């Protein structure tokens, strides 16, 4: 049961931290319309996170609620991949990070609909519709900026390159995932890599950008799935958890 909760929290944390990062654009988007689009996507992600947190709380019991997990765990207990916690940077940076992650979530949720856990499969099915749009949104921006002006192309290529080393973790199986895979609950993320690479390669080709395969000799960062996070994670939690830590149990 502990492993199942750990797996559900991994799914929840991915969406929660990604949603939080995108919410930081609220009021800072390059145009009002983009601002609203990013906020909508952020809310989709927070909604998916809530579904998973609620499910985890219902299994764990013990007075846990959906708020217990995002508000009262510390850095080491979060199970999100490193990619989603990286800072927003400029707009091209955020679009590159989103594009990599959206492409992953698209293939991930497509496969996760086959989970033997009915609740997880149902959340995957609902989230897939949302993520399909997220991927469309970020892909088109990658193309628009990549195939845009000299300056936008250079910034988009830099962004695509700099997040590359954080993409490997998406396809590495943690112990938790391996255990859950045996029960048919989790999916084998390593099998998604080919589809993901094709999605990424097709879009980068359309964007006239270079596929960053050669970078860093194929070495990838990892650790998020087991709670070893980047230095940015603590700052995210400091902001997210401020209210509950200052006024425990506060509601409105």
């Amino acid at each position, binding site marked *: 049961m502990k492993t199942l909760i750990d797996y559900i929290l991994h799914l929840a944390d991915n969406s929660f931290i990604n949603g939080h990062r995108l919410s930081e654009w609220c009021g800072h988007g390059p145009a009002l319309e*983009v601002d609203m*689009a990013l906020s909508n996507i952020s809310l989709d992600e927070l909604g998916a996170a809530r579904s998973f947190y609620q499910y985890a709380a219902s299994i764990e019991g013990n007075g846990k609620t959906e708020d217990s997990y995002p508000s009262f765990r510390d850095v080491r207990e979060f199970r999100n991949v490193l990619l989603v916690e990286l800072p927003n940077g400029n707009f091209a940076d955020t679009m590159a990070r989103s594009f990599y992650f959206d492409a992953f979530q698209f293939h991930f949720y497509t496969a996760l609909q086959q989970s033997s856990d009915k609740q997880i499969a149902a959340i995957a099915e609902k989230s897939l519709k949302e993520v399909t749009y997220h991927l469309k949104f970020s892909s088109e921006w990658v193309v628009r900026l990549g195939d845009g002006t000299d300056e936008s192309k250079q910034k988009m290529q830099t962004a695509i390159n700099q997040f590359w080393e954080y993409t490997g973790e998406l396809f590495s199986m943690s112990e938790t995932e391996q255990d859950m895979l045996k029960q048919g609950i989790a999916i084998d993320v390593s099998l998604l890599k080919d589809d993901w690479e094709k999605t990424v390669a097709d879009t980068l080709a359309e964007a006239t950008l270079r596929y960053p395969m050669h970078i860093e000799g194929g070495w990838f960062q990892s650790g998020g799935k087991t709670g070893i996070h980047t230095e940015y994670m603590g700052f995210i939690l400091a902001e997210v958890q401020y209210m509950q830590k200052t006024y425990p149990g506060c509601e409105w």
Partner: protein
Amino acid sequence: MSNSEWPLWEIFVRSKAGLDHKHVGSLHASDAQMAIEMARDVYTRRQEGISIWAVESKHIHATNPDEAAAFFDPMNDKVYRHPTFYDLPDELKHM
């Protein structure tokens, strides 16, 4: 890129099958595709629609407000143009 470089688009939303597309507002976008996607996020995020039209504002031709008197006022005393002077049989519904 500043907003002023993006052209203005008029957005029309069909709220459900069988109804007309209605003008809901305008927004800035660099091309038609972006206009439709932004319209989705700006005007249909509360489930307001099932179909969106986007028309670049420069393609819309409008009546001149200065000519409104000649254009529209003559109609204000033509009450006989309304089909309200007929006695309808009781069997006729929905009229």
